[in-house]
Every structure is written in C-alpha cells, then in structure tokens.
C-alpha cells in the first residue's frame, strides 16, 4: 500500500511518473499534497518536483507513444478529476510496458477513462475558443473573464496568441483565481491578485451595444427555438456572454 503525494502541478505529476515507472511500483493512491489529510494504513511517498525528470518523461512519451497519446494524458490531467492521476498512470504504463496500441484498446477501464476525460477537456477548450469574450480595457488590453469547468487557460493561450498576436490580452479564470497574460510576444500563467486594475476603454460600451444589436437582429423569429439554443449554449456558459440578458457593460 503506497500513497504518492505530489505538488499538484503537471511537472510534479510527471516527476511522479518518472519515479514510479523507474521503481516499477503502481501507487495505490495518488494525491495532491494539499488534498491529502493523512492515512494510518498506507506508506506515503512525497515526490519532489523536478523539471528535468518531468521533461524526460514527456519527451519519451511523445517519442515512444505519440504526441496524441501524450496529449490525452495531459488533457485528462487538466480535468482535475479526483483519481484521474491513477488512470493516467495505468494509461501510460500500458503504453510503455505492453506496447499495445492504445488507440485500439477499447477494454481497459483506465484507457477508456483517460480518453473520455481528455475528450471532455478538449471539447471545453474548443467551446471556449468561441465563447470567451474580451472586453477592451483603457490601455487597449483585451480582458476575457470566464469560469471553465477544467483548467484550460493554458490550452487556450496558444490559440489566442496565434490569432491576436499583436494585441495584449488577459484570460482570467475566476474560479481558479488564475490568469494567463500575454504581452504581445509571450504568455504567462499568474495568480490573479497580480492583475492590473481593470477599467473599460471609452469605446467599449458602444461595441458591446452594437454586438447585442447584431445578436438580436440576426435571429429569425419564425424559427424561434430557445430549447435548441440552450442545447448549444447551456445557461452556465452565459454568465460572461455580453449578448445574453443583463450583461450590459460588465467587466
């Protein structure tokens, strides 16, 4: 009975994978340090996060398994689902040890779980490529607040860095109290108490109104179908969407 603890970061988790694979042990449980409240029966092993070892794991997963397989592991990790670490352990272990083609493995429950969860995360990421709304702040910085289910800000960043390459922007995950900031060259994840003061630009209110006008005008009344609309865009996503009611000019 071995319980492994790590610092909660992906680098930490990859370090954990490094040591457990090396020692050929399958952890009984894996916890983030902060979530662990002691356990009388099992032995605990604390993993010291090590960037170099983590890199080794990542590189060889990409090379020996494939970038797709690695991406599934990474995405499912970002779900932050309790217990997902152990499934990822099995998933990678199966890949490395048995060299079975994970793509064709439809039976192993850990493989299925990782694939399923990765798909959920990927879907949310895709969704927010469209649903994130930026507000223009007074210095021309674009500010996008949201509350995603999964920790996807780092996955959205490359998308917006390619697209809004010459702009400066902030993606703010209010639930996790963290933000990604982009300065026109590169992006960085930070804790949100480091964010600057937020004040809307002068023209921002006008554009929000024009957008709301567009949203109203483009709908065809004869096809009115709010259930279908809600199917695509559940209420939980509407909080930060300026085009839905009571969303005037808010930050």
């Amino acid at each position, binding site marked *: 009975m071995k319980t492994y603890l790590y610092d909660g970061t992906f680098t930490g988790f990859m370090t954990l994978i490094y040591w457990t694979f090396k020692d050929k042990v399958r952890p009984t449980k894996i916890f983030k340090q902060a979530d662990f409240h002691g356990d009388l029966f099992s032995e605990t092993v604390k993993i010291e996060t090590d960037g170099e070892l983590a890199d080794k794991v990542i590189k060889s997963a990409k090379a020996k398994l494939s970038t797709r397989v690695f991406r599934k592991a990474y995405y499912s990790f970002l779900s932050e689902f309790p217990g997902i670490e152990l499934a990822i352990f099995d998933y990678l272990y199966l890949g490395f040890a048995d060299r079975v083609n994970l793509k*064709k493995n*439809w*039976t192993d429950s850990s493989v299925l779980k990782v694939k399923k969860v990765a798909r959920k995360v*990927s*879907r949310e*990421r*895709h969704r927010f*490529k*469209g*649903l*994130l*709304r*930026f*507000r*223009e702040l007074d210095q021309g910085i*674009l500010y*996008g607040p949201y509350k995603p289910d999964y920790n996807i800000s780092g996955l959205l960043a490359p998308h*917006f860095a*390619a*697209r*809004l*390459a*010459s*702009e400066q922007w902030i993606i703010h995950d209010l639930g996790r109290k963290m933000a990604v900031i982009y300065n026109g060259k590169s992006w960085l994840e930070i804790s949100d108490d480091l964010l600057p003061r937020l004040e809307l630009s002068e*023209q921002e209110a*006008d*554009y929000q*109104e*024009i*957008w709301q*006008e*567009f*949203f*109203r*005008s*483009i*709908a*065809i*009344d*004869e*096809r*009115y*179908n*709010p*259930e*279908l*609309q809600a*199917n*695509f*865009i559940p209420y939980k996503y509407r909080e930060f*969407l300026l*085009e839905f009611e009571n969303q005037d000019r808010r930050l």
Partner: protein
Amino acid sequence: MDTRKKVEILAEAAKYDVSCSSSGSSRANQKGGIGNAAPSGICHSWSSDGRCISLLKLLFSNDCIYDCAYCINRASNHKPRASFTAEEVAKLTINFYKRNYIEGLFLSSAVFLNPDYTMEQLVKTLKILRNSYQFNGYIHVKAIPGADYRLIRQAGELADRMSINIELPSRDSLKSLAPQKKATDILQPMEQIGTDLVEYKEDKKKFKSTPDFVPAGHTTQLIVGASPEKDFQILKLSEGLYNRFNLKRVYYSAFMPVTPDKRLPAVSGPPLLREHRLYQADWLLRFYNFGADEILGPDRPDFNLDFDPKLDWALNNLDKFPVEVNQAGYWQLLRVPGIGPTSARRIISARKEARLSPDNLKKLGPVLKRAKYFILCDGKYLAGIPFDPDLIKSRVARDQKGKNQQLSLFAETNLDKEQVIG
C-alpha cells in the same frame, strides 16, 4: 446614420442567408497582422433560433434595384434602407474580431446602383481588411450576379469562401420570381469559380506567388418551398452542382413569406422538416457515396417525412440486407442505418484483430437499436425477430414514433458537423 442603426437594418436583412460555416480554411496569421482561420470552424454564439453565429453576417446595402418576389429587400418592399461604407465594415469587423465575438466576416449585398458598383464596394472592403488592417481571419463574400467576372475574381483572391445564391431551383421559377436576374448571370460565374479553383491550385504548384483562390471553396443556397420543384429535382440539381461546378456545399433554406406576393404559395410556416431531409440527403451525397437517383426518383419525388433518407433507402432496399459486419466493406457498412463513418472505421480496424462478437460490436459505437435490423454479427441476426420485410418496417416505424424528436430534429444540420469536431 450611426453604425448601430445600420447593423440593425443590415444584419436583419442578411439573416435569411443560412450559411454560417467558418470552416475549411487554414489561413495563418502574418507578422503584425490580426487573425487566422481555424480549419474546423468555431461557433461564437447561438441566436434565439438556435443557429450558430460564427461570422459577422451583413449586407453591405439593402437598397436593391431588383424586385425578387421572395426577398425582404426587394425594391417594392417598404423597408428602411441603409448602406455601409467599406471602411465602416472593415473597422467593425476588426473590433468584433478582437473581442472574440466572431470568426470573421460574411459580406453580402443587395444590388445597389448596378452589379459592378456593388461588387466594387465588396472588393474595396476586403482590400481594406486584408491590406490595411492585415486581417487574416475568415471572410465569406458574395459574388453579385451580373458583375464583371474580373471583380469577382479579385474578391476570390481575397476571400476564404465565396458564394452565389441560386435561390430558385429551376429556370422557370427564376424567371417568374426573380425576373431581373438572368440564370446565366448566376451559373456562369459559378462555373468560372469552379474552374478557377482548380487552375489557381495548379498554378500554385508551379509558382509559389500565386494567391490562394477561395481556399474554403464556393457554395450556394436554394430556397425550398417558394416554387413548385419536387425534392427529387432539387437533389438532382445539388448533385449536378457538386459534380460540375466543384461546389463545396449547397445550403437549403425553408421558405417563409416575408412580403406578400400573389406569385408565392401561401404557407403556414417554413417547411423545416423538408429542409432537414434535404440536408440529410445532401450529406448522403457528399459523404456516403449515394447518388440522387438512389435516394429519390420520378416515381418517389418527395422525401418520406417519417424516416430519414438513409433509413428510408434501407427499408426500400431490404434485399441488400442483412450484411455481415465481419465482412462488409466500408461503403457497405456506411449504408447500414445506425452506422456512421466513425463506427464503420472502427469496425474495420477492430475486426482485423479479432472476429467481432455482438458484445465487441456494441463498444464500437454503432446505434444498435437501429442497426440491428440490417446486420448480421458473426452470423447472428440481432433484431430478435425473423428477417421479414413487413415485420421490420413495422418495428422500425414503432421505434421512430416513441421518440420525441422535437429537440434533436434540427440540431444535426445546424451543427454543421465540421464545426464541432475539435
């Protein structure tokens, strides 16, 4: 008039164009530029009719000199009129894009002054966007029927997608409902775009400097139910357009009367189910290797509204079933109701490893509730009834009835599948 008021008038006027897709282009951002195009397309919102909003869809002007019977912008309709300037549209696009409201611009226009002048304004807008603002996001632009093809070609070099709407599915209907538009003014540029698409691609292989020409392809729209054409005729037309003009998509728009006209049929509401069936059949043409003649025919000119076209086809061709999932080829599997491209592919790759049993089959994702009537798995017929055509038909009909299709009914076409796959 301020921009907001213009948007109100000119988005309202543009909303009957149903295409919204922003997929199929992979334009990259340039240094110092803004925007790129995502090959899979991205939806940014959904309006209260449940349609995806991906592009800033506007008419440049709704001040039309023509008088097409079905159109809200026809000259004889008393409506407020407005026109943008090229700079105005460009600026609005950039500001919407920056805020991540949209994937890009869908710019159409009524014919104001004359076709050439209108087309010039569209080209000018695109030039400002691409050259002054260095915008690399998605642009769908209309080619105006009757405009000089050189202008249309210029637009094609700047846009990602171009379309000319045929609207009415036959020459006769065009003549009676859109008397000022000539069929050749629509079909000729379409054909030319189709040819240019191929030629530019060839040239590009030889000369790197050749610009892209409508990289996301060209499309058109047909109005369903404003004129007497049968479904079969419409589907044949689409098939011809795909084969002869290299069209990427045909969109179908259920007719709804927006202005009274005695040439138009009286309808209680847009024929949405019919439109839905057309989309499904169109899907079969493009991805399932069906021919229009297999789906409908002169003796069965209209869709069965109770069953989707693939199920309907299968029920009418029960002599081709049941097929053994351990043997059937890809295209054969695709014809089984309840098996789509994904599960067909999975079946083929899984059965290389081991012969499929009913249990394994389930995991590969086909909708067995449907498929069971049409397949054998390892020699077994899974439907729990004898393979008897009448019995199967009555069972399938019963299965269909139980479902409340209301919600899901229009979801499929709206999803525009290309767009949701991440």
